[in-house]
């Protein structure tokens, strides 16, 4: 038996192709990218060793800090929104709709599978002002609130809310399913016992259900932050990072630095910062969760 299961030639046949492809396309480039942070240039112009210059530039770069701040703010807000709305939906599925929730669950999940670029194109038409009013502006016009008609995506302040709302809308059904799965795993007797103790409505949710749901909520939050920190498609398709740099997170700054300005060394430095940020957030939440005993 062991002879069959430890046959190295069979192991090579089974694992080899996947491992080889993965090593070439993912692993080696990770280390390569770390090396690139010490260079400047591009494949077309050639590379020049510059040592720590990219990192010195980074800590003096106001655009970088602005993008870091925007991305962090966006990620915190959108992740909180995704998980909170997911939680509310999950509670609604489990306590109000009960067995009849399957259809609602399925419909609310639909936006999750849609391509972000297409959704963003749709949203930009929703909020359009030229060449004609989109759905929102024409609705405002119809109820004589013309003073509110504006270029929603053309100004940083409103664009932020639209991008955030779109990304929350798109993902809330997903987190609702994750949290709902956690909810139905809570034994019926536990909730019944709490009910008989007099816990109802909000107090039942606050003191019984939510604490039991804490581990899966933390997992959802980590997963969500990991996604929102890497946001690219929705902002690229909605505002392209503009107006100016008003809606530019690290991912878009990275893209522009690398492919518009062909600065591969500095681009890699920005990518490394992004990777570190994702890592720190994940570790931080794990650490908090362990400390609070969840």
């Amino acid at each position, binding site marked *: 038996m062991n002879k069959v299961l430890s*046959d190295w030639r069979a192991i090579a046949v089974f694992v080899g192709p996947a491992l080889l492809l993965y090593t070439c396309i993912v692993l080696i480039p990770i280390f390569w990218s770390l090396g690139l942070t010490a260079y400047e240039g591009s494949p077309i112009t050639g590379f020049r060793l510059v040592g720590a210059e990219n990192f010195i530039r980074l800590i003096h770069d106001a655009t970088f800090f602005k993008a870091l701040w925007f991305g962090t703010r966006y990620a915190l807000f959108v992740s909180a929104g995704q998980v909170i709305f997911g939680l509310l939906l999950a509670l609604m599925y489990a306590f109000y709709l009960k067995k009849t929730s399957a259809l609602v669950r399925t419909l609310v999940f639909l936006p999750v599978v849609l391509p972000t670029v*297409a959704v963003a194109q749709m949203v930009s038409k929703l909020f359009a002002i030229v060449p004609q009013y989109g759905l929102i502006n024409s*609705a405002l016009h119809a109820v004589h609130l013309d003073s509110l008609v504006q270029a929603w995506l053309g100004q940083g302040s409103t664009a932020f809310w639209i991008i955030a709302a779109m990304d929350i809308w798109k993902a809330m059904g997903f987190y609702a399913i994750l949290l709902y799965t956690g909810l139905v795993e809570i034994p019926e007797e536990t909730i019944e016992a709490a009910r008989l103790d007099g816990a109802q409505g909000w107090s039942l949710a606050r003191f019984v259900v939510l604490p039991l749901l804490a581990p899966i909520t933390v997992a959802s939050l980590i997963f969500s932050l990991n996604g929102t920190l890497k946001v690219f498609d929705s902002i690229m398709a909605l505002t392209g990072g503009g107006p100016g740099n008003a809606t530019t997170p690290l991912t878009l700054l990275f893209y522009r630095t690398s492919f518009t300005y062909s600065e591969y060394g500095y681009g890699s430095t920005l990518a490394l910062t992004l990777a570190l940020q994702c890592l720190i957030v994940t570790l931080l939440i794990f650490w908090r969760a362990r400390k609070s005993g969840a």
Partner: protein
Amino acid sequence: MQRTSQAQGTNPAAAGHLTATTSHSLQFLQRLPITLLVLLVVFIAVYPVVWIFMSSLKSSVEFSSSPMWALPHTLAWDNYARAWTEGHMSKYFVNSVLAVIPSLVLVITLGVMAAFGLEIMRWKLSNLASLVFLVGIMVPIQIVILPLFTMYFKAHLLDTRIALIITYTAFGLPLVVFFLAGYFKTFAREIIEAAIMDGATIYQVFFKIALPMVMNALVTVALVQFFFMWNDLLISLTFTQDPDMRTIQSGLLAFTGQYGQREWGPTFASIGLAVAPTVLVYLLLNQMVMKGMAAGAVKG
């Protein structure tokens, strides 16, 4: 705990139950706000998709003459024809299909083999190899894009489908491997060991026992990967700059600039064409899609 709750709690719960059943109309009224809320939630989730398809059938006059939320007066199917030809959606659509299908076949084939090798076979470094695959789930794709671009540039693979296919496959592998390894772990081990006792070779075990066992899981994980690949923007935007090689998402992105501003009918038709395959697959297989995506998140 159990005992005290039984002792105290009978009164309020029983009373609440009684009033609720005395009158059906009262129950209906009590539930009315929550029913309206549920309808509102479903409306918010689904209406934008309906709006896309409704608007994609409007003639160009209708966008300015009647409200944006009005139903289309005519069924302007030629919006789709124009999106398909003038908007180059035919090209983008075919490019997407030709990148996604081979990637799916590759990622599933390589993934199921690797999962089998990692989970069922016994070797010293299998844990280390699993850990190496785990790195791919956590690392942001941005960190590998520049080296990949350099590699593809040197190998003359930019603007080819091969670049897209190998990138999609490599980045899909970690999730596929973990998902399937989990399946092998829970279901397969004892049966496989029994088969080997009976003298089956490892390849017979793989094709006759392991593969049929994970067939359902294969479909689930392929669905999840389909959505990732079909909806991808970053990879296709980076590695295909020739307009003729664009996939549906990067093609659609270029739309805003050109005639997307003026020609709303064909633009909505193009959005509809990008969305349609995902909606169709979801309508047919939604339970599997939801299960697969949730499982991916819990593992990732």
